[in-house]
């Protein structure tokens, strides 16, 4: 029977040879994740239903990243509640300010998630780990409480769309442009309840950081999960922590639809307010003035994103009306950037460099927008009010396009800088 990469991983986690689209199975979980916003609700559910113990203290990761270092008393209370729980339950993987980073950059970096795994998280961007050839998906707090208690989750077997990436992308085209292009093609519900699977020669041209960006934003097309074929780069990435379990597309019949994307034809993409599917090319926009630039998040706060931004910002200065905020996604990325001299470049260019946090991505802190303000951001959502005032606007783009906007004070293609 022909199965997709996703279906094979789920089948392996419920002790089956085959699974069929639409059936519901109980699968075992390798890692269960929650953060400072979603963990407290899950913890209360466990307590309310009398679960004295989690299923496995090694297989739960709790990351304090959204409003941390805590921005106010209420967010501090949420972290305190989670911290008490981790002490009580002796949870091994608890990451707080100083140790933490944005969860979806942190877990792969620490080797806590990887190829062949089945991961559930109380955060919609849990789908990021598909870049390593894992099945991973976001859920709500009660579903996560269920998994924390039982080590299991119920899943409806999804059908799948296959994306065959071909050829080499141009200099300023990265993972962000590819996934925005695809979301624009499908719409925000085009992959609802489905898997998005990626393969092809074009994939080999993309760094692991680009691959994380692609998997990360599959939820923006409504997908249950995104998953990429593994190759030598995956093996290299996973080497310090584990051996890669190969993940390959075997038969095209397993897919509902197949799309070929010629990466060499893409140009830098921008998603206009208020939908990640509302896309155009950066060179089609004229005179879109920008008040704030954000380069960071679980989508584009990794080292290669910072390297690209620095390439554009080096020996230049940001526009005087354009506040520019750079947020390395983890402490390790921050340190690597420091050692490479990128942080110096950013500060000399007039940027703010922040400790790792989700911060402005969800309008939490560290760069909230006022009424009528407009930002360009390397994050993943530009819904109404996402970064602050309901009458502010967010444009989504790659680190290259965002850095170019920081210099120009308006949206321009990076080539124009």
């Amino acid at each position: 029977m022909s199965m997709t990469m996703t279906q094979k991983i789920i089948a392996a986690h419920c002790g089956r040879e085959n699974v069929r689209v639409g059936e519901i199975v109980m699968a075992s979980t390798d890692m269960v994740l929650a953060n400072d916003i979603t963990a407290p609700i899950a913890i209360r559910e466990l307590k309310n239903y009398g679960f004295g113990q989690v299923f496995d203290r090694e297989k739960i990761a709790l990351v304090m990243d959204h409003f941390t270092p805590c921005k106010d008393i209420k967010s501090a209370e949420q972290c305190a509640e989670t911290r008490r729980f981790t002490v009580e339950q002796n949870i091994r993987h608890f990451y707080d300010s100083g140790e933490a980073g944005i969860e979806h950059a942190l877990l792969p970096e620490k080797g806590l998630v990887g190829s062949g795994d089945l991961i559930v998280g109380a955060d919609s961007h849990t789908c990021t780990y598909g870049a390593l050839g894992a099945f991973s998906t976001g859920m709500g707090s009660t579903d996560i409480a269920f998994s924390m208690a039982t080590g299991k989750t119920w899943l409806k077997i999804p059908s799948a769309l296959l994306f065959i990436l071909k050829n080499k992308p141009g200099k300023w085209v990265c993972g962000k442009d590819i996934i925005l292009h695809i979301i624009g093609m499908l719409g925000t519900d085009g992959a609802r309840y489905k898997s998005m699977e990626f393969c092809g020669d074009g994939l080999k041209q993309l760094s692991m950081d680009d691959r994380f960006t692609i998997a990360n934003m599959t939820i923006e097309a409504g997908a249950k999960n995104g998953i990429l074929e593994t190759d030598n780069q995956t093996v290299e990435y996973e080497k310090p922590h584990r051996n890669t379990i190969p993940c390959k597309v075997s038969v095209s019949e397993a897919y509902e639809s197949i799309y070929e994307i010629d990466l060499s034809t893409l140009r830098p993409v921008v998603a206009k307010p208020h939908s990640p599917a509302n896309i155009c090319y950066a060179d089609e926009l004229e005179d879109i003035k920008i008040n704030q630039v954000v380069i960071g998040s679980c989508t584009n706060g990794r080292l290669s994103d910072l390297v690209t931004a620095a390439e554009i910002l080096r020996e230049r200065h940001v526009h005087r009306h354009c506040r520019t905020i750079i947020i390395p996604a983890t402490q390790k990325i921050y340190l690597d950037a420091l050692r490479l001299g990128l942080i110096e470049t950013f500060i000399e260019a007039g940027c703010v460099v922040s400790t790792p946090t989700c911060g402005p991505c969800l309008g939490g802190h560290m760069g909230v927008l006022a009424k009528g303000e407009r930002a360009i951001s390397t994050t993943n959502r530009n819904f109404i009010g996402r970064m602050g005032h309901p009458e502010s606007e967010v444009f989504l783009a790659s680190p290259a396009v965002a850095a170019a906007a920081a210099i120009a004070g308006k949206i321009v293609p990076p080539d124009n800088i």
Partner: protein
Amino acid sequence: MKLTGKVIKCSDNIDTDVIIPARYLNTSKEEELAAHCMEDLIANFSEIARGAILVAGKNFGCGSSREHAPAALRASGIICVIAEDFARIFYRNAINIGLPILECLEAVVYCSDGDTLELELSEGTIHNIMNGDIFHAVPFPGFIQEIISEGGLMNMARKCTEVEGI
């Protein structure tokens, strides 16, 4: 169980950032969340929501996984959300916390803002008492019905762990 309420109509792709903006997620207290539910879209929502039925288009509840979204709708007094279809995480969350939801394209097309609907949840029937229209929602799959009849997912977890002795 019969439920009766007035329709509040909204569009396609209502995301969880609009249902409860992230700036209020420094708490999970439901009454605080309810005070800000949908405020970026319908400024007086907290005044009109009690006892109302939200009728939306497709992909309701897309975006973030925050369970605060169905919790805020429930706490603000919404008795049921009817949509053409739901984003998958919202769908799971609503079932898990017991916010009634129904999938019904016809109801979305033919009901207007301010109509009064009578719902029979167990049968999935939607009766528009303004004009007599009757619609039937898509029935829940068997497994979801089991979760509902067990009294929620966590009761099911109890059963799982008792059976397997985890």
